[in-house]
C-alpha cells in the first residue's frame, strides 16, 4: 500500500475504454495488488500431478471406467478477464482429463459450458476456451452451452434445510462422474458456486441471487461461512448434490496478475516503477486511444488477451480443493489495509464478466463498481459506513442489442421508476424472468437471460445500502442520474461534491485495479 506524497507521480486510473493519469491529494492511500507470482513452468505436468494425486478423492484415472457416463462442465466466457492468451488453462486441463477418459475406455462423454443464465458462447469463443483439438472432437453435438430453460434438460435434486430448491443440468445429475474445470479469478468464484450455480436454472439461482442474500454477503469476495450468504447458500446446495449421490471431481486453477500484454504492460506496474519505455508506452497508448474512433478503440480492447501465468492447479473433492485454491488466490491478491477511509476511489476498467466481446452498458458499470469492486474486501469495506464512492467511467448510454436485450428494457422501464433493489425485485423480477421473448433469445440467440440485469442491480445492493454517495467522474449525466449516481466533470469536482457527505478533508483510498486485489481491512 502506498501513501501519496509529493514524490508520487500521477496515478493510472482506468475509465472504461480509456485511462488517464490522475493526481491524488496528498495522504491518499493507494491499495495496489501484490506483485505477480511466478507462473508454473510445466503447467501440463502440474495438471497431471493434481489429477493423479487429488485432495480427498481417488485419482481421476481410478474413477474412470468403460461404459460410464462422464460429463465435464467448464467455466464460461465470464472467466478469466480479459480472456487468457492461448492456450487457455481450461484447454490444458481438458486435454489431460479427456486423454485419461480415452485411455480408460469411456465412450459416453459430454462437455458443457457452465453458463447458467449467462449468454451462450459462440463457437469461436468455445474454441478459444477449450482448444482446437477438443473443439474438433466434440463440437457441436457433445460440446454444448448449458441451457437453463430446456424443460427436458434440468433435474430437480431436492431442497436444502432452508428450503432452497436445487435444480441442475439433468445430464450432469445423471452422470456417473461430473468433472468441473474451473478458473478461479477472484475469491467469489469456484467451490460450490461452480456446479450448484453454473449448471442451474432460474428456479435454483433465485434462492441466492436476490436482494436479501446480497445484503447479507459482506462481502461476497469473502466466502468463509457466515460472511457471505450467497456462498452459504451455494454450500448448502452442494451438500444436497452430494447427498443425492452426484459425484463431482473438481479441478480448480489460479492465475497470476499478468493481466495486460504489451503494449499495455505498464498497466501491470506501479507508477513510480515505470521505466522510460513504460512512460513512452503510456503516452503512445493514451494518445492513440484518445484519437482512435470509438469503433476502432472498441475493437482494440476486444482483442486484448492476457498473458497470465498459472499459479496453481488443485483437484479432488470440492471443499478441499477450494480451500487450497483460496489460499493460493489470497497469496496473489490479498493486501492488508489498516482501517477504513471516508472515500473510496475506483477506476472501472473496460471489461467485466458480462461484457466480454460486448459493451459495458450502464447497468454493468453498476455491477462492476458498487458491485464487484466495492466488494473486493475481507472483514469490512475499505470505505466507512455512509462514506462516498468515486468512480471513473464515461457510463455511455449504450447497450449490446444481441447480448443484453433485457438490459435495455430494464434501464428504460424499471430504473426510470425506481432504483430501490427491494422494490425492483418484488415488482418486476418475475415478469422479466419468465418473459417468453427473453427466454427465446437466451436459448436461441446469444442473449443474457431476462432476469440477468436484475442480478446485476442486486450485486450493488449492499454498496447502495452502505454508502452515502456515489459519484462518477466523466460519466454521462443522464445515465448516471437514471441510476441514482451523480456525475462530476473532474476528480476535483467529485471531491467537492463528496465533501457534502464526508466533510471537507476526507481520508481517501484508491483501489488500484486491475490487476485485481482484495483488501483485507483490519
Amino acid at each position, binding site marked *: *500500500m*502506498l*501513501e*501519496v*506524497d509529493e*514524490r*508520487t*507521480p*500521477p496515478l493510472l486510473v482506468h*475509465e472504461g475504454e*480509456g485511462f*488517464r*493519469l490522475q493526481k491524488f491529494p496528498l495522504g491518499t492511500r493507494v491499495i495496489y495488488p501484490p506483485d505477480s507470482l511466478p507462473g508454473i513452468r510445466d503447467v501440463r505436468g502440474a495438471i497431471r500431478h493434481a489429477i493423479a494425486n487429488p485432495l480427498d478423492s481417488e485419482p481421476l484415472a481410478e474413477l474412470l471406467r468403460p461404459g460410464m457416463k462422464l460429463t465435464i462442465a467448464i467455466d464460461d466466457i465470464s472467466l478469466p478477464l480479459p480472456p487468457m492468451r492461448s492456450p487457455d488453462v481450461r484447454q490444458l486441463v481438458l486435454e489431460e482429463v479427456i486423454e485419461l477418459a480415452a485411455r480408460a475406455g469411456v465412450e459416453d462423454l459430454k462437455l458443457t459450458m457452465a453458463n447458467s443464465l449467462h449468454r451462450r458462447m459462440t463457437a469461436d469463443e468455445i474454441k478459444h476456451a477449450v482448444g482446437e483439438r477438443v473443439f474438433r472432437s466434440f463440437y457441436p453435438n457433445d460440446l454444448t452451452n448449458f441451457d437453463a430453460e430446456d424443460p427436458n434438460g434440468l433435474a430437480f435434486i431436492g431442497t436444502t434445510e432452508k428450503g432452497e430448491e436445487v435444480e441442475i443440468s439433468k445430464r450432469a445429475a445423471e452422470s456417473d462422474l461430473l468433472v468441473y474445470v474451473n478458473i478461479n479469478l477472484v475469491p467469489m468464484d469456484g467451490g460450490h458456486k461452480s456446479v450448484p450455480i453454473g449448471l442451474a436454472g432460474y428456479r435454483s439461482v433465485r434462492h441466492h441471487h436476490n436482494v436479501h442474500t446480497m445484503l447479507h454477503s459482506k462481502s461476497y469476495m469473502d466466502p468463509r461461512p457466515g460472511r457471505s450468504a450467497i456462498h452459504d447458500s451455494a454450500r448448502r446446495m452442494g451438500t444436497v448434490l452430494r447427498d443425492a449421490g452426484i459425484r463431482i471431481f473438481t479441478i480448480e486453477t489460479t492465475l497470476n496478475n499478468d493481466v495486460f500484454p504489451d503494449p499495455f504492460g505498464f498497466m501491470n506496474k*506501479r*507508477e*513510480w*516503477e*515505470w521505466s522510460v519505455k513504460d*512512460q513512452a508506452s*503510456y*503516452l503512445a497508448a*493514451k*494518445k492513440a486511444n*484518445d*484519437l482512435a474512433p470509438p469503433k476502432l478503440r472498441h475493437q482494440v480492447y476486444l482483442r486484448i488477451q492476457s498473458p497470465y501465468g498459472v499459479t496453481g492447479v488443485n483437484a479432488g473433492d470440492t471443499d478441499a480443493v477450494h480451500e487450497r485454491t483460496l489460499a493460493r488466490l489470497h497469496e496473489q491478491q490479498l493486501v492488508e489495509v489498516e482501517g477504513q477511509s471516508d472515500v473510496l476511489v475506483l477506476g472501472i476498467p473496460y471489461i467485466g464478466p458480462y461484457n466480454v466481446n460486448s459493451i459495458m452498458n450502464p447497468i454493468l458499470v453498476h455491477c462492476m463498481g458498487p458491485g464487484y469492486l466495492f466488494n473486493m474486501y475481507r472483514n469490512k469495506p475499505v470505505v466507512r459506513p455512509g462514506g462516498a464512492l468515486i468512480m471513473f467511467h*464515461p457510463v455511455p448510454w449504450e447497450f449490446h442489442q444481441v447480448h443484453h436485450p433485457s438490459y435495455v428494457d430494464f434501464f428504460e422501464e424499471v430504473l426510470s421508476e425506481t432504483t430501490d433493489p427491494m422494490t425492483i425485485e418484488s415488482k418486476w423480477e418475475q415478469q422479466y424472468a419468465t418473459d417468453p421473448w427473453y427466454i427465446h433469445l437466451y436459448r436461441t440467440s446469444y442473449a443474457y437471460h431476462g432476469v440477468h440485469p436484475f442480478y446485476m442491480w442486486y450485486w450493488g445492493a449492499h454498496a447502495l445500502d452502505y454508502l452515502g454517495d456515489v459519484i462518477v*467522474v*466523466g460519466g*454521462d449525466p443522464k445515465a448516471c442520474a437514471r441510476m441514482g449516481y451523480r456525475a*462530476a*466533470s*473532474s476528480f476535483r469536482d467529485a471531491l467537492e461534491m463528496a465533501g457534502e457527505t464526508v466533510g471537507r478533508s476526507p481520508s481517501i483510498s484508491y483501489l488500484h485495479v486491475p490487476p485485481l486485489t482484495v483488501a483485507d481491512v483490519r
Partner: protein
Amino acid sequence: MAASSRRTRSLADEVREVARGWRWGRRPVVPRSAERVTPPAKVWSFPTDWARTEAGRAARDVILSGVMKPIVWNETSPEVFGLDNLDHLTPPVMFVSNHSSHLDATLILTTLPPKWRNKTATAAAKDYFFDVWWRSAFTALVYGGFPIERGGGERATEKARELVRDGWNLIVFPEGTRTQDGWVQRFRHGSARLAIDLGMPVVPIAIVGAYAAMPKGRSWPKKGRPPIRVRYGPALEPEEGETHQAFSLRMQHAIAELFDEDRTSWWEARRRAAAGQTPRISGPQGPKWLRTWEGSRPVRRRGTPPVWR
C-alpha cells in the same frame, strides 16, 4: 463532458504531465511509503569509455580550456601553488583532495598542466553523477568522470583499477561527498587501499576557499570573485607493509599541512608538522551551527587590497 475534454488534451500536455510526474532529467525518487518495499534500481553503468578516446580528450580539452576555465577564473579568483611537486613524478598518480564544492574537480583539472590533464580521470559518485543520462554524459565528457559506488567494496573500484592499468591518473575525493560545514570530513579508506594495491603515488591537494565561494546547495559561485587557492603537495608513496588505515591518515595529514601552509607559511607549517602540532582540519568540536559558522569564514585575500581614488 469531462471524458471528451480529456480526449482533446494535446500530446504536449500529456508529455508535460509525464515529464513532471516522473521527473524527467532529474533523479528519480520513490514515494516515501514505498521506499521500504522498493528494491534498489537495476545496476547499470553509464558507459564512459567514449569520453577517454582521442576525440573525447580533445573535446574535454576544448571545454575545460575554452569554457570551464574562463567561467571559473572570471567568477572566482583562483591561485595555484606547488605544481612543481609533479615535475619528478611518473604517471599514473592519484590526486587526492578535500571536497568542499562542485568547483573542486574543475579547479584541479584546469590547474593541472595539459600533459597531466589529458590523461586524468575523475572518480564520481555513481548515485549522484550517473543517475540521469545528461548528467552522466556531462560528467564523463567534462571531467573524464567514471562511476564509483560509495558503498565501497571490490566492485566499487573495478573501473578505477582498469583505468590505472591503462595509465590514467585519477582524481579522488576520499571524503566521498562534499562537506556540509566547510570542514574536512573523515576520509574513507577506499582510495588508500587502491593506492596501496596498485602501488601508485598519491599527490595531496588542498583547496581553500571553494566552500566559501560555492558551498553545497549553490550552483553558481558567490558574487565578488571570492579567492580560492589550490595547493599541490609533495607526493606520498605507500610504504612497505603500511596498512590502508595508516596510509589514509597520512594522506589526511598531508592535506592538513597544506591547509596550515596556506594559513601561515611553508616554514611555519613544516615546523608544526615536525612537532606534530599541525592544526586539525576536521574543525572545532561543538554544535553544528558553530562548525558551519567557523567553516564559512571568508577566506582572506592575499596582497594589498585595491585602493580606489
